[in-house]
Each structure stands twice: as structure tokens, then as C-alpha cells.
């Protein structure tokens, strides 16, 4: 009887100790393992970058510009390098629109079809309007992603480059 009681006590103790050990080690280990869920490990240049003067852009005809930026990948910081491309469309004397060249459907690079005057994605033939980037045809769930533009009084065009999640109708930053 005493022996049986002692046995029960020992089993309970060993179970309790195992739980404590597993918790003290397990919680930090699992939290650290799952950390990527709460962190943007890869980030690019923030803020606006100059893309030349508005006077250099033709009105109504898109011009593609490379984006040079600094990437931070976990602990690393790159030297400035090519990280993407964007389309600039000058509308009038003072207004410029900018679009990411990443197709919102499956992240292919979107080109400009001069014959038809539309933005065209070569991968799955999505077409986007030159006027405002909305979907004219094809599988893309949303129009081209516009980027924040600011034209300074001296005519310098500043664009903030951003990346968005592809494949959804909502435009959300990566």
C-alpha cells in the first residue's frame, strides 16, 4: 500500500518535472523558431528616391526606370543594387503617375505594348490601361499597383518604391 502510494507520487512528480523542463526549454525555442512569423526579414530602401526631372518625360508615353536600392536581409545590408523596375507616365505639365512593373497576378514583369497602347504582362496576358492601370483583360485580380509620387517645385520626380502581395484583389505591402 505504502509502496503503491510512493509509486503514484513518483509518477506524478516525474510528470510534473517533465512538464516544467519541457516548458522552460520549449517555450523559448519554439518562440525563436517561429520568429519569422512576426518579422519582415527582408526590407528594401524606404522613402522616396529621385527619378530625374519631369521635363525629361514625354507626355502620355510610359518610361521604364530601374530601381536601385539597399536590401537588408536578416543581419546583412547590401550595397546599392538593382532591386526592381517601375513605369513612369507623365500626364501633363505637373502630374506624373508611377506603377510597379510587378504584375499583381503572378509577379511577372509587366511591359508596355506600343501598338495597342496598353501595359501588357507576357506571362498570362493580363492587360492594363495606360490611363490608370486598371485591368482590361486577363487573370490579374487587380490593376497595376500605383506608387506614391511627388513632383517637387523644381520638377524633380520622387517615387517611393514598394512591393505588394501578388494574387489577391486587395493591394497589401509585402
Amino acid at each position, binding site marked *: 500500500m505504502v509502496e503503491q502510494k510512493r*509509486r503514484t507520487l*513518483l*509518477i506524478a*512528480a*516525474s510528470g510534473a*518535472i*517533465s512538464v*516544467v*523542463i519541457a516548458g*522552460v*526549454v520549449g*517555450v*523559448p*525555442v519554439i*518562440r*525563436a*523558431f517561429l*520568429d519569422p512569423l512576426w*518579422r519582415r526579414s527582408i*526590407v528594401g*530602401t*524606404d*522613402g522616396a528616391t529621385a527619378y530625374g526631372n519631369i521635363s525629361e518625360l514625354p507626355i502620355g508615353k510610359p518610361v521604364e526606370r530601374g530601381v536601385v*536600392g*539597399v536590401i*537588408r536581409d*536578416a*543581419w*546583412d*545590408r*547590401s*550595397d*546599392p543594387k538593382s532591386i526592381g523596375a517601375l513605369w513612369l507616365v507623365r500626364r501633363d505639365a505637373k502630374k506624373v503617375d508611377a506603377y510597379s512593373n510587378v504584375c499583381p497576378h503572378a509577379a511577372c514583369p509587366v511591359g508596355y505594348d506600343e501598338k495597342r497602347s496598353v501595359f501588357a504582362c507576357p506571362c498570362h496576358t493580363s492587360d492594363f490601361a495606360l490611363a490608370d492601370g486598371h485591368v482590361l483583360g486577363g487573370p490579374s485580380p487587380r490593376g497595376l499597383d500605383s506608387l506614391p509620387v511627388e513632383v517637387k517645385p523644381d520638377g524633380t520626380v520622387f517615387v517611393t518604391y514598394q512591393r505588394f502581395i501578388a494574387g489577391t484583389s486587395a493591394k497589401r505591402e509585402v
Partner: protein
Amino acid sequence: MKFRDWLEDRTGYRKIMKSALDEPVIGGASWAYVFGSGLLFLFVLQAVTGVLMALYYTPSSRESWGSVYSFTHVVPFGWFVRGLHHFGSSAMVVLLVVHMFQALLYGADRAPRELGWWTGVFLLFVSLAFCLTGYLLPWDQKGYWATGVVTSIMGTLPLVGRWIQHVVQGGNGLGNLTLTRFFGFHVFFLPTLLLSILVAHIYFFRRHGATPRWSRPKAELEAKTRPFWPGQITYDLAFSLLILAGLVWVVIAKHGAPLDAPADPASNYLARPEWYFLWLFELLKIVPGRWEGTFVLVFMLVAVCFLLALPLVDRNAVGSPRRRWRHLLAAACLGGGIAFLTFHPMVRDASDPAVRVQKEAAEKDAKEAMTLAALGIPPGGADLIYMNTSRSRGAHVFVHECQPCHKGPDGIGGASAPDLQHLMTTEWVRGLIADPTKPEYFGATALAGMPPTTASPADLATLTSYVRSLGGRESEPPTGKKLFEDTGCHGCHALSGEDPLVGPSLGDYGSSAWLAGVILHPDAAQRYGAQSTMPAYAGKLTDEDVTDLETYLLPAVAKPAKSAQPAQPALPAQKEKQP
């Protein structure tokens, strides 16, 4: 119960569980038997924390430090997990020694348990190999320099030393191939080796059972024998919990494992091995350099042979330590000698001011490195984080170009030129006007001609304010210029827009343009003239170098926000986690 029957049918697990758990423990559960299980727990802990760290680690001389930095300071609980791994390795060494002494005392090395003892001796050396390969991996100052000492000692072995050193290093020096080798051994080869020997060790232990205390009569042992589960297991778990509690306490008290500044082959870091190799380092002090490798090898071989031979020599039929005192004394001498040689240098270093200064400098470097690393590790590698800010670049230039003659902001440097520690502060300027011939000003230089001032303290204060106002450090006092003329300063020192006089022109004194002028052309007529013996840095330092020096030397007032910016475009800093 159906599932269990199905499982039993397919696997036969009940028999395995039974043999694992119902193993009889001779004489019943005992605290004397917990050490082996404690070591097993530590091994599992090292494996779990090690695998997690491997998920955040890159073995490369440019990347390793950054990856360890990021795991320690950015990943939540990273500092804690790395701390458990770091101090867990020390706990393992301690417990291994305790386990071996307990086994010796109880006579568990003797027939028929020799194989258990021998495999245990191998496990000790495999564990030390883990330690040796582990601490290089962060590629910080400590790992780099301590490993350099070890591989150099290997290189002193006669005939084959150079080859061995090259193979271990993966080349003619410490670099990427050293890291990949040490990493590969640490995470693939050694764990496999340890696990294989461990299986054999546990098998041999199971075959002959635990060794009960020599004084217990046979009848009592037999009467009290119980299965492994649940008695001994509970003792083992309780002991493991005690170890874990101790580890958690140390990890929290020490804020995790230390991480020094990135490895810098150009620094004068004081290399000290981890504590478990200190005795060897101490022993080597009595050995002439070229024989170090041979000495270590012979010493290790003798120690291994001694440990392996113990059960062969100790053939006494009685297990009591009294009858076996010679063997125990020999083992105690070996252990005691090693313990003495471990503690002796610790105590000596603790009371050595030179060591303390070096240690504090290393800690300061490490702290600065963490701040700079938060801006990102540059593509050139972790040691280039010092190029991350203008101030840190300035410090770098200062150390190489100015420090031989001038003391800098941290009070370190030569004394043959003015002390720049408090450059352009009110105290510094007042002291300069009061007596420029003091050694901390121009006393040790070839410049002479300006006598100590005879102005009253009130006038001295006004003059100080006036001189500081020339470089825009404070607003001009109303009577400043008049006093400057009345006390005769203007007789030697020209002001803005005037031709240079005998002494340095003070028109922009203390501004960044003035400092740049002094650095680039100290011998110009409007600076210190032909009397100056300071080398002119025009053509040697770039404009950026000079700007960086200004950021480092001049108080922030003169250089607003601009130069405090990081060298690269501003980026969102990763969330910083400090333990």
C-alpha cells in the same frame, strides 16, 4: 485500448518499453546514479538549442558574426537559447568530471565494467572536441584568437605539425575554410560520433547495472532493488531540473552568452582560452615554444593511457575505497592538478590591472559593435561595421593617424601633442588660454611664444566665451572683442578677414573648417606656421576622412545631425532586443 493493441501488434513496443523502463536498479533508486542521466539531459539540451541556432547561423568569415549577433540581439529568446547552449557546454564538462570521479569512487570502472569506463573516457574527449570547435563559430575576437593559439600549438609538433595545422585550419590561416570545417565537425561529425559511443556506453551500463555503494550488504541490495521506472527516473528528472535551474540562473545573471566584437586580425586582443582549457594554457607556460605541441600531445596521451589503464591495474577484489586508495589518489592528483592550474590563472587574471584594462576595452568594443551592427552588416563583412557611421569611421582614422601623438575622446593616446579628449569644450578652451605651455596643451610640442595669461578669472571666462564664439560654439559676449584687444590677444592672433599674425588666426577657431585646416595644413601661416611639427595630411586623408574625424573629435554642437547619419541610405532598423 484498441489502438495500443494495434501498435503492439505492428511494432512490439511493449517489450521495448518494458526492457527500457523495468530495468532493475540494484539497491533501489539512488542520488548517486543521477550523473549519467544528467549528462544525457545536457546532451539533449545541447542538441535542441544547437539545432535551433543552426537555423539562424551561417559559417563564413564575413557572415558568422552578423548571424550570431542577429540571433542574440534580434530574435526573441535568442540570447537565452544561445546562453543555455554556451553555459550548457561548461556544465557538461563539469558534470563529466563529477561523473567520472563518482564512478571511480564507487569502483564502477573495474571489472566487469571496463568497457563502460573506456567508452566514458572517449566521451570526455569527444565533449572537449565539441567545446573546441564550438567557440570559434561566432567568429568574434575571443573565438578567433583562442583558436589561433590552439592551431599554432598544433603547428609546433615536430615533422607533421605544419601539415596538421593546415588540415585543421583548412589552409594557411584562420578563414572561411576553418569555419566550415569547425562547423561541419561540430554539427555533423561529432554529434554522430558522440551518439554512437553513447549508445555503446549505455548498453555496457545496462549489461552490468549500476555500481552500488561498496558498504551496502548484498542482502539489503537485493531486497531494495526496484525497476528504473518510476523511482530512478524521477530522481534523474529532478536532478536534470536542478541543472536546468542552475543554467537558467547563470544565463539570466550573465545576460546570455558573451559575444565579443567581430574578429579583427589587426587588434591586440588578449587571447585566453575558455576555462576548461585554461590548465593546458597554464601548463604550456613552462614549456619552450617549439616543444609546446609535442608536450600537449604527450601529456594527453599519458592522461588517456592513465585513465584507460585504471581498471586494468585496479584488480582488488574488495570495492572499498580504502583498499583502492592508491588508484584514487593518483586520479585525485591528476584532477586536483588540473583544477589548480585552472583556478590559478583565473585568480591571477582577476587581480592583474593590465588584464582588467584589456578586458574592459574588449567589453567596450563589443558594446559599440552591437550598436553599429544594428545598422546592418556591410557586404564586406562584420569587421566593416566600424565603417557604418561617420563617428566610428572617424575613430578608426584617429586610432591609425592621430593616436600616436594625441589623446582622443576616450582618453587613450600619446602625450607628445595636445590632448584632444575635451577639444573645444569650455574647460578645454579656458585651460588653453590660462596656460598653453601645460603638457596637455602645447607644452610637449615645439610651439612656443604664448605665455600663461595674467587675466582675472572673470576676464578669463569672458575671453573663453569669446574665443568659443568665433567658431560658432556659443553666442559672442558683449565685451568679448574689446577684452580680446585690451589683453593683447589681438596683437598675435588675427581675426576673420585679417592677414595672419605671429600666432594662429582665430577667425573660425573651433569650427569644422578650422579643424579641417589644422589637419590638412597645420603649417599654414594662419594656423600654426613653420613652428608646427605636425605632419600635413593634405593628400593623405580624403575629405570624408576629415569630416569623420570632425564628427569624432568635435562636440556635437558644431556638427548638427548631418554627420551622425549612417553611411548608407537610412533604413528601418530591425527591432532591437536586448536581453
